[in-house]
């Protein structure tokens, strides 16, 4: 594709590395910003350097997912993998510059090293893309920016090697030099992560500062019980089956096998003004009906809840289309009997009791709300800081 001696492949690799640097920096910046336990906008654009935005669900979902960081038990939020990308792109930017400047004086061994290592970000990107598609069901634009940069880098580095493969006039270089570059790549890749890990603020004083449940038991009614197969930790959850954050939280509990160690008392708290007087407009239209379906699930309540989460997009659309569409969806999946229960006045009363239980406890009107035993987990500890917080407050849950 490129002629012998062409500098274009190295230039492409250099541009790709800088693009990768920008996307990896944005991703790391978003992660680091959340270490203050506040809400922040998130960078989520194909355009390098585009400002952070509030509507960035896919990028937020990726950030909160278990795949976004390493060592989540040891560090609050973990050590984001974008840091390794940041370090690696630093190395490849410098190495591409070197290859670009040295031109035909670059040895074939050097270019072989460049090609071999230049595809590693692409391999990691392919792995992360697969995870995004299969586990998260969506691809965040910033991540996609890194994937595209990685692909360009791989293209540039491999093309540089291919163009020089048959060029016998190039000088030779020693294997020791290759070993040194490899070491430099390793060090450069690790440096940002080490600096991050060494400087993240201690979150331990904050994770116990979000209060306790005021009234531990509902009077005259019962919660939905979700008893994990190895349940050792009591937990109280307030959830809305049509709330994306609840779905993401539930998915994290399932993916990380935490749910099986919890003895959950679930209270339904639909953010739908149809039944929830605490809202003046429905945030999730139809959530009251789906919440009643979960209540009617009785022994199958967990299955109904997980069905609602799995079909959340469809049910949300159905909820907006009207109650009958939603009822039809419930009937189709769970049958006439469950739908009759949904329409029963007693179920209205049960749901109302759950909402009153929430109001007696003065929970924040946002979902999910999570109590580990009696202690309320701060919202930020239910997403980015979940594993770290569980590790501190209920370490046996992570074993």
């Amino acid at each position, binding site marked *: 594709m490129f*002629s012998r*001696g*062409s*500098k*274009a492949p190295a230039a492409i690799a250099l541009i790709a590395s800088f693009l990768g*640097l920008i996307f990896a*920096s944005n991703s*790391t*910046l978003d992660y*680091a*910003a*959340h*270490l*203050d*336990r*506040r809400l922040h906008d998130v960078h989520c654009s194909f355009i390098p350097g585009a400002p952070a935005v509030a509507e960035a669900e896919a990028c937020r979902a990726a950030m909160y997912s278990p795949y976004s960081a390493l060592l989540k038990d040891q560090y609050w939020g973990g050590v984001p993998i974008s*840091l390794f990308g*940041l*370090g690696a792109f*630093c*190395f490849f*930017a*410098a*190495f591409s*510059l*070197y290859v670009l*400047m*040295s*031109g*035909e*004086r*670059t040895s074939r061994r050097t270019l072989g090293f460049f090609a071999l290592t230049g595809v590693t970000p692409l391999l990691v990107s392919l792995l992360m893309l697969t995870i995004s598609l299969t586990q998260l069901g969506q691809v965040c634009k910033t991540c996609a920016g890194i994937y595209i940069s990685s692909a360009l880098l791989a293209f540039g580095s491999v093309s540089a090697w291919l163009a020089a493969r048959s060029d016998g*006039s190039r*000088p030779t270089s020693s294997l020791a030099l290759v070993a040194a570059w490899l070491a*430099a790549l390793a060090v*450069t890749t690790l*440096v*940002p992560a080490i*600096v*991050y890990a060494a*400087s*993240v*603020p201690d979150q331990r004083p*904050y994770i116990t500062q979000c209060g306790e449940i005021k009234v531990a038991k509902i*009077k*005259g009614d019962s919660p939905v019980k979700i008893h994990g197969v190895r349940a050792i930790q009591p937990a109280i959850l307030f959830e809305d089956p049509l709330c994306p954050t609840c779905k993401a939280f539930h998915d994290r509990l399932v993916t990380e096998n935490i749910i099986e160690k919890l003895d959950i008392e679930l209270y339904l708290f639909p953010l739908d003004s149809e039944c929830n*007087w*605490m809202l003046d407009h429905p945030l999730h239209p139809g959530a009251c009906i789906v919440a009643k379906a979960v209540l009617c699930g009785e022994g199958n309540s967990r299955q109904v809840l997980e069905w609602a989460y799995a079909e959340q997009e469809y049910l949300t659309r159905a909820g907006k289309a009207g109650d009958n569409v939603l009822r039809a969806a419930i009937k189709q999946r769970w049958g006439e009997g469950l739908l009759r229960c949904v329409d029963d006045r007693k179920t*209205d*009363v049960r749901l*109302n009791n759950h*909402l*009153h239980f*929430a*109001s007696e406890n*003065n*929970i*924040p*009107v*946002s979902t999910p709300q999570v109590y580990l035993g009696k202690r309320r987990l701060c919202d930020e500890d239910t997403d980015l800081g979940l594993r770290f917080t569980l590790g501190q407050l209920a370490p046996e849950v992570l074993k």
Partner: protein
Amino acid sequence: MTQAMDPTPPPGSGAGVGAAAKAALVGLAAGVVLTAGAALMVRSWTASAAERLVEPEKEKPKVAIADQAEVAYCTPQFKQVLERVLHSCGLSGEGEGARRGCKPADVKTFASISDDDFNALFTPLKDRGGVIMFDEGRDELDDKAKKLLEERWYDRKGARYFFVVARASKTGSQSKNNALSHRRANSVMLFLTQLANDPEIEKKVGLLWLGNEFAQLSKEYCGWPNSRPDEKCDEEPINRSAFVSWVDCRL
């Protein structure tokens, strides 16, 4: 693609070796600068987050807190009367000796309010509540009364307290009517107890019986939702009643 015009010295020549060394140095320097820059950037981000962590948030986003309903008709005066009902008529009382309900003399005393003003306070509850009608001299609930009561009871929404204000018409003696309105209030309470099967019902339902001596309803109240909408209504039948409603006020 493009053929680069590279005026590079031939590999192996002295100038070539020098240029290669220069490229290596530039590459090395770029690597060090970029890595150090990335490390410093990361360090500044975490340090900045750490600073914000210890500083109180200036414009903390306000999050609504779950609570009982509080609607526009919950004026201070209305709440004052209801609170007196709560305290004086036993809803907030616990343990032995807690009183259940308020008789006319109690209401007159604690409400400290004229008859008309007392009734006016309940005007905003016109559509939320209902008037349960009784036969003359009777305290039994008929089927329509039970139906209306059931509808109103199940339409709780965010209310914490359910008020029952029983009355008797002018016909008959004051003491007889006091007792009659008391029985009417109790009939409502008994029905609700059976309906709700709620161990906490005593703390939710406030009973007032006014006999015929306080806050009688005028004929205008015949237009309120009641259990006998098809029957002739005037000041006699409308006061043979119990007004029931959930109250959407935080008390």
